[in-house]
């Protein structure tokens, strides 16, 4: 008769009854932990020293943060938080460092702490001579487009403003480029060592010119690094950048698409211009003004006239699919009478602002829903920004309202929530015209601008 004795590999336990989870051998404990979701793992790490060591080792060795990112955030927001980077940073790429997911996750978590953490509000005034037309934020820098055609860079730490570029007429839109995919850039020479998350600016103006230049002050910029071209003899309305693609919406209903690259891959050289190669020119399917967004390699363009959403795949410029949004019954006339602004956001999200002040949203790009958060305010929404877990609304009365919106589907749950943060930007009740959100390294930063004033809101954690 055969017999086999199975012994416990570790002799200390002997009999495991009356034991606790912490008495499990490490390799078993690790296996239990691998079944847990992100939050539970983080909480387990605060239970006892053994668990803490386990989790720290786990997060270094295994894909805990990757798991957190995919189960809690969702790919769309994760893509957004990876700062529109392309340089080897695509989410399905196994070349990713685990560290990357940790940073991304922390970024997202921090964005949820708006209104919970202490904040600082830095007002920057004095733009009466030179009103602002649009604004962007990148790390410690604010990039402002002005009505006289200047693009200025301000580091809000020292409030030092420098001109980066001069157009002849009003700057209509700005987009920021990060092709190298580094964490931060210190190209802009400031006294306080301000850093940015991008390395180049692309600005468009009413003089029909597109200009691309590094984030540097004009006084030290090498003139050969400055790129200027005129894609169309019509006004340029919007510019968007996603990864290596840049798209511009012209008033002639044309959408221009470029593929950008660094002169030497992976290395930012501020003395050499970026390579812009025209990828496609697509005529907007509707002969009416619209709004658009670029996400991955798809342009989505919303035309107010007939309430139709067009999706244009950049990989194939000749194919253009149009999908009609199911707009709720708004009346009899054309939709342009009712829609005052449309915000085409992320991959599928759309928020419509009606002339009446009503709001509609769609998160699937197909159906529109009533968005009754306008009831929280007395004035109309002029501009809005969505980033990570933050939805910021800029109102006509000069008020800034910030909501917490952790995942895409949480947009639907904002109905009965109050804004987590409110700020009245301007004493003269000037409307907020431009908003942008970014991460300054330790938390989210929201900039809001009226024509004459800028406000920088930073949230910071007490543990750093």
């Amino acid at each position, binding site marked *: *008769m*055969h*017999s*086999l*004795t*199975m*012994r*416990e590999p570790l002799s200390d*336990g*002997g*009999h*495991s*009854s*009356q*034991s*606790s*989870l*912490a*008495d*499990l051998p490490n390799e*078993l404990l690790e*296996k*239990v932990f*691998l*079944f*847990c*979701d992100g*939050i*539970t793992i*983080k*909480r*387990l*790490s*605060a*239970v*006892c*020293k*053994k*668990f*803490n060591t386990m989790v720290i080792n786990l997060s270094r060795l*295994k*894909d805990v943060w990757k*798991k957190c990112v*995919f*189960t*809690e955030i969702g790919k769309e927001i994760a893509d957004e938080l990876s700062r529109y980077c392309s340089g080897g940073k695509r989410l399905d790429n196994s070349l990713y460092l685990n560290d990357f997911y940790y940073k991304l*996750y*922390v970024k997202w*978590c921090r964005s*949820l*702490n708006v209104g*919970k953490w202490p904040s600082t509000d830095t007002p920057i005034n004095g733009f009466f001579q030179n009103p602002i037309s649009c604004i962007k934020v990148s790390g410690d820098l604010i990039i402002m487009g002005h009505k006289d055609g200047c693009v200025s860079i301000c580091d809000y730490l020292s409030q030092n403003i420098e001109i980066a570029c001069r157009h002849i007429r009003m700057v209509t839109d700005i987009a920021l480029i990060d092709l190298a995919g580094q964490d931060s850039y210190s190209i802009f020479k400031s006294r306080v060592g301000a850093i940015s998350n991008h390395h180049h600016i692309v600005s468009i103006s009413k003089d029909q010119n597109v200009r691309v230049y590094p984030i540097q002050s004009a006084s030290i910029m090498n003139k050969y690094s400055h790129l200027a071209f005129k894609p169309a003899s019509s006004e340029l309305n919007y510019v968007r950048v996603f990864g290596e693609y840049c798209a511009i919406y012209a008033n002639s209903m044309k959408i221009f698409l470029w593929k950008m690259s660094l002169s030497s891959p992976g290395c930012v050289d501020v003395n050499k211009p970026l390579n812009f190669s025209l990828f496609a020119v697509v005529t907007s399917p509707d002969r009416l003004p619209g709004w658009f967004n670029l996400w991955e390699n798809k342009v989505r363009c919303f035309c107010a006239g007939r309430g139709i959403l067009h999706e244009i795949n950049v990989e194939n410029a000749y194919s253009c699919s149009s999908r009609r949004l199911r707009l709720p019954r708004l009346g009899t006339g054309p939709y342009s009478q009712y829609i005052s602004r449309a915000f085409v956001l992320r991959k599928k999200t759309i928020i419509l602002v009606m002339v009446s002040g009503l709001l509609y949203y769609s998160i699937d790009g197909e159906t529109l829903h009533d968005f009754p958060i306008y009831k929280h305010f007395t004035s109309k929404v002029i501009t809005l920004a969505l980033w990570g877990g933050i939805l910021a609304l800029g109102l006509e009365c000069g008020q800034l309202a910030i909501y*917490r919106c*952790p995942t895409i589907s949480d947009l639907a749950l904002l109905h009965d929530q109050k804004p987590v943060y409110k700020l009245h930007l301007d004493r003269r009740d000037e409307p907020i015209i431009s908003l942008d959100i970014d991460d300054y390294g330790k938390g989210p930063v929201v900039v809001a601008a009226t024509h004459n004033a800028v406000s920088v809101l930073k949230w910071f*954690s*007490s*543990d750093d």
Partner: protein
Amino acid sequence: MSAIKFETSDGFTIQVERETAVVSKVVKNFLEYHPTDKCTFHLNCVDNATLRKVVEWMRHHKDDAYIETESDESDEERSQDVSIEMDPWDANFLNEDLFFLLDILNAANFMKIKVLFKNCCKKIYLMSKGKSSVEIKRLLKERCDFTDEDLQRIANKYEWMARVN
């Protein structure tokens, strides 16, 4: 009749039919190399109550094809599997207190019963899911070996990451 015997750490002997016993990878592998009808396995670390529970599970699952196909996958593959889906019978079967669950987990590990082991892990996860670290500590009856300072530091570091609902 072929019968496999298990001897528990507290001296009991349980006789199990061959097709039930081979749910355990250890038994299966042993029998492949030592073809025999009669055989006793001494389980030094599994007590009577636990073994009865495990055998009950083995009997219920002896005909399930997936038990067989469950291969020795790498840890990497497992970490990709975020599904915590469980057979409802198993979920009900494992409605036990944590200590018994840990005994089952240990037994499943020693006897190499992958699915049972996995389900125990999932069950432990489900028990601690949605609880704060203090609640988890109470649930798992863990000894607290952190100083107050440590606790504050760790709580700051991880609790702010937890999603605000």
